[in-house]
Each structure stands twice: as structure tokens, then as C-alpha cells.
């Protein structure tokens, strides 16, 4: 069973920001500093090179127990046994990536406005990028969304949101104040002489804000478990259930003579306990009634 992904500091590769230094060394420095999720982002290399880089990065991140996400390419992610992919709005739909990667891998999505964030949550993204908060050289030409969108996402979206785009040590507090719980940086980390030290300082800021403000999720839910939106028997419902069995129990159905279907596939009762429900999934609970 897959539990919701949790992280605080997301680092993305950007080899153009550290000419002359080895990418693996730079990322390892960030990992030592506490970066707890890594994305391989490389729009220049060939697929062959990408697979190689991803494999080497995977070896590295695995040693630190940190997930590796591959930008854009589910096939590369699979080839390197990476933990997931990150997609943009113009990339393949989440459902397609999910089909390729299976239910256990992570699928993240860049979003630039709240409608996209809601759609991503609905379609079953594991996390979303919220940004670019500030203008950034990594995404030239894209208008900054400002911290207003960060606040909006923090208030409205249940899956993990990570603020991204032009975030540095200097403006991190501003982003965290707007409601961000997780930060992502590219140039501010990998472009720095000492990525480890930058990561430490960014994490300190994140921790400080996280302890200052109660988590939004906890404000809403007694247990603090993340709440997801699911469609049950054609009805939009919110639930904190992590498995099909928990979901059935929520409606007092667990001991009744019923059959369950998740996203169009029958799930035998003995598997309910190990079948996870994810945001945006469609569940049918049915039984036999009189009929001709």
C-alpha cells in the first residue's frame, strides 16, 4: 500500500548552474544538507544519457532513502527504477502516466493556477508544484504566480503542494508566510558553492514556519490524515480512508454482502484491506436487488 508522499525540501538538478562540477556530487551535497526529494530535470540530454544519469542518481538517492523523480519521461523513470515522474501541464495526462507507472510510483504535476491544482488533485496527482512564485531563469517567459497562489493552494488543496520558482534563502520566509509547507529550489541550491549549507538553512526556515503555524490539514481533520476526494457510487465524497476497507467501514458497509469496484475493476473482498484509495478515484459499492 502506498502512503501519501511526505517531504519538505525538494531539490531539482540543473547542471547549467554548476559548470565544472559533477552533478552527482552537487546533489549528494544537497542530500547531506537534508533535501528529501530529488528530481532529475534535463531538457538537453538524449534519452540514452538520461537513463544513465537517472540510474546513477537513483543509486545515490537510494543511499539517502530519498525518492528520485524524473522530469517528463515515465519510460526513463521505469528504466532507472526511479520513484516517480514530474509532469507539466502540456505533458501526458496523469492517468496515462499512472497507467505506465502503475499505482505505486509518484506522479507530480506543475500547476500555475488553482483550477489546475484542483484538477491535479482530482486526477490523482501525488503532489503538485505551485509556481513559479517568482520569475526564474529555469522557466524563462513564464509569468510568476506570486505568493497569492501559494496561499490559495495551501488553503484549498489536500495533496502536498511544493512552492517553486525563483525561491532563494532571501525570499523563502515570504513564501512560507504565505502558507507554503514545502519548498523547492534549483539554482539557489545547485548553483551555490555549498548546497549542503543552503539546504540546512532552508530547512531551518521551513521547520520554523511549520512549528509556528498549525498545519492546515490538522485544522480540518481530527486525525490529521490527509483528506482526499473520491467518487463513491457517482457521488462526490471526501474521505480520510487510506484503503478500500476503511472506505467501506466509513459507510458501515464492511460486513455487508456487497461487491466493490475501484476505477472500473472489481476488487475482491479479501484485497480491500490492501487496496489503497487515491484522490480522484471512482468507487462503486453494489449489491443485488430485485429485478427481472
Amino acid at each position, binding site marked *: 500500500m502506498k502512503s501519501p508522499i511526505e517531504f519538505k525540501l525538494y531539490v531539482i538538478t540543473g547542471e547549467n548552474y554548476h559548470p565544472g562540477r559533477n552533478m552527482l556530487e552537487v546533489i549528494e551535497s544537497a542530500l547531506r544538507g537534508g533535501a528529501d526529494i530529488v528530481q532529475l530535470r534535463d531538457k538537453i540530454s538524449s534519452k540514452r544519457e538520461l537513463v544513465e544519469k537517472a540510474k546513477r542518481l537513483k543509486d545515490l538517492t537510494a543511499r539517502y532513502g530519498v525518492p528520485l523523480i524524473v522530469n517528463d519521461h515515465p519510460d526513463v523513470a521505469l528504466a532507472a527504477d526511479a520513484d516517480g515522474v514530474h509532469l507539466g501541464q502540456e505533458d501526458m495526462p496523469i492517468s496515462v502516466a499512472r497507467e505506465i507507472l502503475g499505482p505505486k510510483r509518484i506522479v507530480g504535476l506543475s500547476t500555475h493556477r488553482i483550477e489546475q491544482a484542483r484538477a491535479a488533485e482530482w486526477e490523482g496527482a501525488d503532489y503538485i508544484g505551485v509556481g513559479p512564485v517568482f520569475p526564474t531563469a529555469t522557466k524563462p517567459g513564464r509569468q510568476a504566480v506570486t505568493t497569492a497562489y501559494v496561499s490559495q493552494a495551501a488553503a484549498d488543496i489536500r495533496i502536498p503542494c511544493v512552492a517553486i520558482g525563483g525561491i532563494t534563502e532571501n525570499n523563502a520566509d515570504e513564501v512560507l508566510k504565505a502558507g507554503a509547507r514545502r519548498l523547492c529550489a534549483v539554482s539557489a541550491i545547485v548553483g551555490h558553492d555549498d548546497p549542503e549549507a543552503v539546504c540546512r538553512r532552508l530547512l531551518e526556515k521551513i521547520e520554523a514556519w511549520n512549528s509556528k503555524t498549525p498545519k492546515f490539514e490538522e485544522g480540518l481533520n481530527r486525525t490529521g490524515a490527509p483528506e482526499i476526494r473520491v467518487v463513491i457510487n457517482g457521488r462526490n465524497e471526501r474521505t480520510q480512508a487510506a484503503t478500500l476497507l476503511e472506505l467501506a467501514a466509513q459507510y458501515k458497509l464492511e460486513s455487508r*454482502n456487497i461487491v466493490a469496484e475501484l476505477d472500473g475493476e472489481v476488487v475482491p473482498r479479501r484485497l480491500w484491506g490492501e487496496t489503497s484509495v487515491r484522490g480522484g478515484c471512482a468507487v462503486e*459499492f453494489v*449489491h*443485488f*436487488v*430485485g429485478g427481472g
Partner: protein
Amino acid sequence: MKTTVQDGWLIGGRKLKSRFFLGTGRFPSPTVFLSALEESGAEVITFAVRRINLDSYEDDGMLQHVAGRKLIFLPNTSGASNADEAVRIARLARAAGLGDWIKVEISADSRTLLPDPIETLRATERLAKEGFTVLPYASDDPMLCRRLEEAGAAAVMPGGAPIGTGLGILNPYHLGLIAEQSRVPIIVDAGLGSAVDAAQAMELGADGILANTPVANAVDPVAMARAMRLAIEAGRLSRLAGRIPKKRYASASSEPEGRLFATEVREATT
């Protein structure tokens, strides 16, 4: 062929005695249904697959009422408007663990509820491949019924008239042809109104009938269940007995020889 109403028959390898399939919908109460079931002698009963009412914790399912009885369950795919939906419903029904029989019922028209022949054929083909015992509810079209048989149907269930209309058998000629040509059992399903229609279906050569509304909505459903059972037996026996051919004009059944008041015209003139 034994001229007895107790002759057994087979569907998908299962031996049946009763030729009456009883629907379970629209009965005034579970008790009335159970009494009607008793009187009908039915061994096969049909169900629909529906969403649980999430707001009600009461078990309104049908199964609890028939638990422990030796019956064959024939869930239907009503509510499906295409083959994909029917296949989904069939899989859900099979997951209930009560056997692999499925009545394919695909309606694309809400006014007539007439079965969609193309989608019905598609669903039959797919479900037969998946190992279901498939009984498609179909239009009373001889060619379609043949195609369904070729697609792997264990029995074919042509309708007498649209579901719930009680109009009886609208096209006895077609039903007769279907029964004549078919190598799998033919069960006349839908549209029957009362016992007379059941008898007619059996006389036309059907192997059985499926009825729900004419029993459930009769003034006395229990009595109607018995009437239909007797009619099915009567119709079956009549079919086996072999009916006389129809003639345009009368032919006296009493011997003409020796009748009173006959004028011996020939003798008188000679």
C-alpha cells in the same frame, strides 16, 4: 421424446426441471415474493445489480430473503446501455460469488427498453470468452438469435413484447422460427401478460419462459405464479403432444355417418 412435463433440460451444463424463470422485482413484499417463488416452482431467479444507498444502513439487498435455498442466480445487466457497461456489471455480479450466470440486458431506449442488438451481441461474445454462462435478452429476431448462439450464448432469451407491457407475444411467427432453428435453449423473456402468453410461448417451442411483472404486479401474485407454472406445463405438454394443423373451414369432429334427419336423397331419386 417423453411426453411428460417433468422432462429435464440443460443450460450451460446445469440440469433444470422447472421451465419457469422468476424475476424478483416489484413484488409487494419479500413474503409475497417467497410464496410466489414457492408456487412457481422456479429454480432460476433473476436479480439486478445496483449501487448501495450510502445514506441507509439497512440491508435492502434481495439475497438475504433467499439465503439457504437451492436456486440458480441469474443477475441481469439492466442499467447498461452498451457492451462495456454490461461487462462491468457482469464482473461485479460474478464477484458476489453466486455463480457465473449472467442475463445480458442492454437497453438504449428508455421508452421501449428494447434491447440493443449490436451491443448485446458484443457483450455476449466478450462474456462468453470470459467464461460466463451468458443468457442474452434479445429482440425476437431469428437472425440475431442465431448470431447470439454462435457468439457463445448458453441460452437465448427473445422478448415477447417490451418489458413490463404485458402485451404478450407480438410476433409468434418469429418466435416459432427462433425456437425451431436454435440449438441452445430459448427462453421467452419480457412482455408476457398472463398465463395464456406463457402457454403460447411454450406451444411455439420455447424451452422456458422468464416472467417478473405479470406475476409481481398481478392482483394476487402468488396465484398468478401458480397459474403461470401450470400454463408452462400445459403449453409444454401441448407442444409435445403435437397440435393439429390449422384449416380455413370446418371439419366435423362427429362422425357424419348415421346422423338423424339426414335425407337419403340418392335412394329417393332412383
